[in-house]
């Protein structure tokens, strides 16, 4: 499998909304307050109003369902939706829960972003699949997103 860097995306998370125990697990929604993204072909900011709808499953895996709107530095809007998984050793997850900075190589945090845009300059995003590696920082996650070639 071949890939190349599409962008790094950093989002700032506002106070989590702990929905609690639901039929498929434990649900916590993390509103996205802001953020920015940068790559060789596009850069800009994350608009407020998105969120990451997370579900902690019975097997300890956290399912992620991120939806945000990106705005490029030349004014195009891009819809981003990303499914992901996060899991790792209990002590690593506990450190993350304490908002410590943890080596991202010690846990599994991967997502598969999809993009939609109406802007011709960025229409290539409509036609690709991507994979990201996540790094959960205290202020919010940083995603290194690769285009699957």
């Amino acid at each position: 499998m071949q890939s190349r860097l599409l962008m790094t995306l950093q989002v700032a998370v506002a106070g989590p909304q702990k929905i609690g125990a639901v039929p498929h697990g434990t649900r916590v929604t993390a509103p996205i307050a802001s953020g920015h993204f940068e790559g060789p072909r596009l850069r800009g900011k994350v608009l407020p109003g998105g969120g990451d709808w997370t579900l902690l499953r019975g097997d300890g895996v956290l399912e992620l369902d991120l939806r945000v709107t990106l705005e490029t530095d030349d004014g195009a809007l891009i819809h981003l939706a990303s499914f992901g998984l996060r899991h790792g050793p209990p002590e690593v997850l506990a450190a993350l829960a304490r908002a410590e900075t943890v080596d991202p190589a010690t846990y599994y945090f991967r997502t598969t972003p999809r993009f939609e845009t109406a802007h011709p300059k960025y229409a290539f995003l409509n036609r690709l699949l991507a994979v990201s590696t996540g790094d959960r920082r205290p202020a919010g996650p940083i995603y290194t997103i690769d285009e699957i070639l």
Partner: protein
Amino acid sequence: MSGAVQSRPLMTLRLSTAPTQDVGAGPHGKRITFPIIGGSFEGDRLRGKVLSGGDDWGLVRADGVIELDLRITLETDDGALIHMTFEGMRDDAAPGGPYFRTLPRFETAAPKYAFLNRLLAVGVGEIRAEGPVHLLEEVL
């Protein structure tokens, strides 16, 4: 991979399909359904057959890209059932040659294969005379 994400082979999946069902133009595009009547999969950690009864629901978008939405059941050679889905994209007119990529996901109750519940994967697809073949890699 030249980017940040590492991967390793998970399986080669070969699908047998029945004649395509051309559902026609719907609100989101042209719908075509590819019924799956069987197949096989093989990798270092698992192998077996594809049960009949699955489908790949395709949607031809206005920009020519076919969005794929597959659901099948795998049966391993030791009797475990694995629910598999993927979303995918097929762009036969991509500038660099046909682009046929998928994002498979798995669910199983068999402890031996529970690792599949905890991984994301990427597939590279190819249409061959005998049917679609997908090279699936685990995202590490």
